[in-house]
């Protein structure tokens, strides 16, 4: 391997690492606030990328119908819940209608807009408007009713949601993979390196998003409230910050991060309906290196995973995935060795 190849691989690795870093941050966030290990994260990546691709093809993405359907289920549950409480007449219908307002507007917008002629940036906005709200809905339907269950039960539910979403992905988008148009065709040559505009987009957007999240958590009231919930759910509740709201907000952020990651990498890699899972899992490897609790460590782990993957694909491409996923085991081992004595789980 000469220096130029090494540089090239490093460049690839950093691009991948930036995405894994974003996903790792979302996973850490979701776990620390809700104790859910967010396996369906990858589906937001895939749904984001494929919704974007469908919009670029000028067609209506099926994800809008998922949004409408999931909201309808949530509305029915709300009606049933309020019906049992006897508040159907006073607030029930109003609350249920409120749940349907936003998805109905998004559906109308998607159907009304001339999708084939939109500028790319509008398509990105529309993709986010369609896919991101699925995340808080997911929290409402799958996790909120069992918010106090053990971590393992939440984990199995997360896996079940993931499985269902992958199945839906196949129905919505078919088995074909897609790439989207790049945000920009520009490229910069630095010495022997040729950096494409999209790679710069990925790294710059990731950095901007990480910075924005850091500001959100350190300087805004909601950010601080989320951190407080992560430390002590009951304490935060007693201070008037609802854990249900915290859960929905966290899922919203995670959905945003996942969807945006999908939109960003879609021009670089071909995305299939089930690609998201492997990408999400690599985000996991990164998050676990950070012990599912530390943001900077998770970001460092992500960079490591990205570089390892890119160099492994050069040396032993057949064993690329084996190498990346086996990396997790020594890390997990080191983590568990640092805490001793028998613990209850």
């Amino acid at each position, binding site marked *: 391997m000469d220096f130029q190849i090494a540089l090239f691989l490093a460049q690839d690795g950093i691009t991948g690492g930036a995405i894994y870093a974003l996903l790792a941050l979302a996973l850490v966030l979701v776990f620390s606030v809700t104790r859910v*290990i967010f396996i369906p994260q990858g589906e937001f990546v895939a749904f984001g990328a494929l919704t974007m691709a469908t919009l670029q093809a000028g067609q209506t993405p099926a994800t809008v119908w998922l949004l409408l359907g999931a909201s309808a289920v949530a509305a029915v549950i709300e009606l049933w819940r309020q019906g049992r409480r006897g508040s159907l007449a006073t607030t029930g219908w109003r609350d249920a209608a409120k749940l349907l307002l936003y998805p109905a507007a998004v559906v109308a917008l998607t159907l009304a807009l001339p999708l084939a002629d939109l500028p790319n940036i509008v398509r990105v906005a529309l993709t986010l408007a369609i896919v991101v709200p699925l995340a808080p809905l997911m929290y409402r*339907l*799958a996790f909120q*009713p*069992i918010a106090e*269950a053990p*971590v*393992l*039960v939440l*984990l*199995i*539910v997360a*896996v*079940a*949601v*993931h*499985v*269902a*979403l*992958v*199945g*839906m992905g*196949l*129905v919505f988008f078919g*088995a074909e993979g897609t790439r989207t148009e790049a945000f920009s065709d520009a490229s910069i040559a630095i010495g022997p390196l040729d950096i494409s505009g999209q790679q710069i987009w990925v790294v710059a957007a990731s950095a901007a998003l990480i910075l924005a999240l850091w500001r959100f958590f350190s300087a805004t009231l909601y950010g601080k409230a989320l951190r407080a919930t992560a430390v002590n759910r009951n304490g935060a509740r007693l201070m008037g910050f609802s854990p249900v709201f915290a859960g929905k907000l966290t899922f919203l952020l995670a959905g945003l991060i996942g969807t945006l990651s999908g939109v960003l990498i879609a021009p670089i890699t071909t995305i299939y309906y089930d690609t998201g899972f492997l990408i999400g*899992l690599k985000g*996991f*490897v990164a998050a*676990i290196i950070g012990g*599912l609790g530390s943001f900077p460590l998770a970001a460092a782990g992500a960079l490591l995973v990205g570089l390892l993957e890119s160099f492994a694909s050069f040396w032993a491409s*057949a*064993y690329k*995935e*084996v190498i990346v*996923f*086996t990396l*997790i*085991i020594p890390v*997990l*081992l080191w*983590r*568990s*060795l640092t*805490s001793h*004595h*028998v*613990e*209850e*789980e």
Partner: protein
Amino acid sequence: MALRFTPLQVLVAFLAATALAPLVLPEFYVTLLNYIGLYAMVALGLVLLTGIGGLTSFGQAAFVGIGAYTTAVLTTAEALPAWLAWAGGSPWLALAVGLVITALVALLVGSLTLRLSGHYLPLGTIAWGISLYFLFGTMETLGGHTGLTGIPPIAIFGWELDEGREIYYLIWAFLLCAMFTTRNLLDSREGRAIRALNGGMVMGEAMGINTSRSRMVIFVIAALHAAASGWLYAHMQRFVNPTPFGLHIGIEYLFMAVVGGAGQVWGALVGAGVITVMKQWLQDWLPRFFGAAGNFEVIVFGVMMVLILHRAREGLWALVARLVPLRRAERQVPVADALERKAMPDRGEVILEARDVTRRFGGLVANDGMNLEVRAGEILALIGPNGAGKSTMFNQLSGVDTPTSGEILFRGRKVTGMASREIARLGMSRSFQHVKLLPAMTVLENVAIGAHLRGGKGVLPSAWRLERDEENRLLAEAARQIERVGLAAHTFDEAGSLALGQQRILEIARGLASDPCLLLLDEPAAGLRLKEKQALGDLLKKLRGEGMAILLVEHDMDFVMGLVDRVVVMEFGRKIAEGLPDEVQRNPAVLEAYLGGAE
């Protein structure tokens, strides 16, 4: 009166139906039953591992793959390396080799990942599940993604099982055998240790159970079940490729266990049956509905899993079991010879001695230079206001925690830093301030956990019921201790149904079942009514009379002062007084600690 059957009658009816099924059912359903049998075997391993042991694994499909690929390579390869040539060509030898390889891989993977706590373990299983799957697909000798073909059928005494109806009997014989042995195992000394893993680890260790060994045992057993299923699968399909051993199938196996009822042996069969039949049915029906090909059934499975975990976490078996009209069996304590007892130390011998024990948690000094000693035939009370450091002291004495400095001697032997199960083996037993018992197990079984170290029969004898003699002696001993503490009327009740005070008494019986010479009791009288307290006092006096040393932490001063021989008073982690109950009660430092300074 409604018709009711004994468990034996139901079992015979089930076995008869199983034996007759392939004779009357069309080919298609026999194939379906074959798959159900294969999947149920893997799900059974998960029932043991996840439902009972509390260790979630998404990677079981990889072990199925090891079993399948081992036999595929050994029975189809034209030129095996010389050291393996002896195992070539015969499916039965390949089964043995496959089980050995699986056990070795499970031991390796287990020693790497079983130490992981909580949610790290399932994530670890995802990691190695994926790694092994990719290995199957990339290794040249395993045929890559196309796999291996031409696997011969299994032959039994020259009879080739090359039809679905024939291998059916082998598959179901394996499954029923696995269910039989798993049930037996769970109802034994080893089984109680396994059942203690889920929520009773600290207690189990204090009773002498090696919990990391038990975790490894169920991990290896679950892997072996999976490998045997893979072996049968390879010889039924006659070819293998990596697809059925991927992570998504591993997830499906876990679904089967959870849907059926992860805590029940029969749940594995119900879960595998429901998922397999539904999958078949949905695969026929959904594509017509959607008008396209695809694996839509996973959407239904995913949603169903979420609903089951929301609404019926016990799984479907709990619902099925209610439909079977079973007659309730009368349960009786077995009659058996008493267990051997250790010789009691001489009265007055120093049993336990703490020397300058200090325990810091960061900046907080919970115990500061504590000294105390307990003698045989003596009851020592450790008292003090809340937060004085009594429970910290207790945990260090029993090996749950390790002192920052200082040492603890038990019968003259240094035990500082020893695991609590090693200390238990030396003859110390304890109860817990916050009761730690297994609420779903009977009082008898809970107390029998205390006698764990007095038996020694392992997994294999337990699985095949070759340890009944020892098991009966253990249960008889447990029943004797239950009677001794006055809980005989509750012997077969669920421990969780007892009142809190009775649960504390149960913990004493459990401690006594280990035949200790020192009993550490953490607030044994809390939650007891007056009569019960008197009975407890009488029991402790009797034990003292037999030469036992007892150390108790207690807040109830009336109870303490009338009972104990000596008192040690703690405040802010230090000993502020020691002496006879009367002296201590008049000690000004003690009065100040309890009542505040007199100014």
